[in-house]
């Protein structure tokens, strides 16, 4: 019916979008005007800060950043022409990122699922919630020194290697475990918010088909929040990549990746190394290397990595249309 009508009726075009008369900015109250101005100033100010950072590294960093730096190993030479690039720190960053996320993602997701979907007894879930907040608020250097104290205990020797008086405590494994604590809050918060925003109807639909609670979580609820999980994990990865204190205290921040004798992969995981952040620190004027040019180059590269990650987070948010809890019925 509707089709035949539209075929006969003349083509209806939308009118040009126009706005009616609106209240003038100058007629507002002084306080409203002030807040309005502040909103503009802070917004633009933030953009300026970011622009300044990017611009600094675009000029200063990329002057020194050459492709060969990315593919050559660093070496301890006073002559900067011979001190090599930062392949090892890049490897370290990638490894620590994978390791930290491999621990943080499941823990964060499982914790969020427990708090939102079960959360009984109440007092326990409240404790869990504030524990995550405490971890999120703890400075990473405190986490690092805690990790050092913990992993120097003799029983943790398999994670690094034995040294007189206990374990060495510094390795990819130990730093990976502690650095995961930096990423857990991001994963947890994103997942929890996604779970809370997932409509109760979706769960009920599954229960109404005779599914158990755990099957509902696994097959319906988790798929519904997979984008939130991905976003949280990517943000957490950014935190891991950007972390410095834990790397310096717990990874050893050695110039090159040092494997600990043993089986190939395990030896690498039990060994020490460095990441881009510790490389920047050590090459900065405050560090022992004192090669600011290298530091700027590595910093520019790290910034590029973080910008890429942020872009990735934005992309993840859009995969497969809007998330289920924002606009569920596309066709309706």
């Amino acid at each position, binding site marked *: 019916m509707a089709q035949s009508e539209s075929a006969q009726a003349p083509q209806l075009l939308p009118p040009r979008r126009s706005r009616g008369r609106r209240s003038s900015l100058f007629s507002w109250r002084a306080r409203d005007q002030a807040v309005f101005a502040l909103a503009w100033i802070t917004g633009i100010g933030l953009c300026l800060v970011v622009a300044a950072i990017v611009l600094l590294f675009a000029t200063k960093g990329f002057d020194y950043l050459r492709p060969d730096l990315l593919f050559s190993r660093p070496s301890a030479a006073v002559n900067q022409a011979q001190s090599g690039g930062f392949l090892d720190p890049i490897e370290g960053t990638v490894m620590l990122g994978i390791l930290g996320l491999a621990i943080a993602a499941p823990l964060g997701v499982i914790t969020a699922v427990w708090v939102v979907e079960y959360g009984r007894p109440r007092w326990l879930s409240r404790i869990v919630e504030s524990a995550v907040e405490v971890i999120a608020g703890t400075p990473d250097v405190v986490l690092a020194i805690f990790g050092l104290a913990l992993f120097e205990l003799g029983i943790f020797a398999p994670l690094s290697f034995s040294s007189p008086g206990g374990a060495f405590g510094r390795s990819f494994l130990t730093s990976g475990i502690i650095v995961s604590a930096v990423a857990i809050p991001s994963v947890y918060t994103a997942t929890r918010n996604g779970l809370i925003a997932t409509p109760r109807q979706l769960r*009920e639909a599954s229960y109404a088909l005779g599914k158990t609670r755990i099957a509902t979580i696994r097959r319906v609820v988790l798929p519904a929040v997979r984008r939130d999980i991905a976003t949280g994990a990517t943000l957490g990865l950014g935190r891991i990549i950007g972390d410095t204190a834990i790397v310096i205290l717990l990874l050893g921040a050695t110039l090159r990746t040092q494997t600990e004798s043993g089986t190939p992969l395990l030896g690498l995981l039990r060994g020490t190394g460095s990441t881009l952040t510790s490389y920047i620190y050590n090459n900065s004027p405050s560090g022992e290397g004192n090669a600011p040019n290298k530091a700027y180059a590595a910093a520019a590269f790290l910034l590029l990595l973080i910008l890429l990650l942020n872009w990735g987070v934005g992309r993840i948010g859009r995969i497969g249309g809007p998330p289920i809890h924002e606009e569920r*019925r596309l*066709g309706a």
Partner: protein
Amino acid sequence: MTDRASAARNWVAPEAPAWQNEPLPIEKLDLEAQLMAIAPERTNARPRRATAAATAVERLRLEDVSVFYGNTPAVKNVSLSIRQGEVLALIGPSGCGKTTLLRTLNRLTELTPNASHSGRVLLDDEDTHDIVDTELRRRVSMVFQQPNPFPMSIFDNVGFALREQSRKRPRRRELEPLVDHALQRAGLHDEVRADLNRSALRLSGGQQQRLCIARAIAQEPEILLMDEPCSALDPRSTAVIEDLILQLREDLAIVIVTHNLQQAHRIADRVAFMYLGDLVEVGETEQVFSDPREEQTREYIAGVFG
């Protein structure tokens, strides 16, 4: 829109033959014979109430059911029987306990932390509280007011109920005929068969609701509960779904909550009117609409309140 649906609402399609231009005289018992003579293929358009009740078998019986949310009663001492082969419509103003009553039938009210209840709900003379909840809900399935497809493909939505009922997960190939059959019964198969791997969220609202029906009937439930399944849909989708309900009625007992009195009149064999948690009146659709026993029912149907 199919012929059956249009006839069912006494609505005249442009190409309808002359005999259809009069509203169907529902009380005439020889109508079926007339229809058979004029248009044998349209026999489904006969008034449904004439034959359905005769073959109806009681499946679900409510005995003195009360449901409370905290200290507030939502359903008070309702006794009712629900029969296979007929559609029972629950009508009444908002907040009268229709949905609560519906959710009690497959124990979904148990998910509300402060809900408590008394009385018994018997499925084939077995107390539903003695049936494991997942098994009960497989036998007494439900379709909700808002279409709520899962965020997965069309195939997986329909296969969802069938999967994971046993320890061994069935293969896709084993599920395919069942999924196809469910989609066909829900009248959705022709529209989606080109790509069953498409996300269910990309379907239109009416298609999504039919998908939810396909999902609910895929595991061959004995009773289908529908909570205002058309209230979020446009008239065309509503017509398709009403048509579907009339077909499904043959194999299932259907309980439908609706705010739409015309809809109840069109599709229900029996109507139960609820008001403030009480079951005021229950009876054959024609009787309730044309000659209600209770004054409250009369006023509600006349639009005095609601």
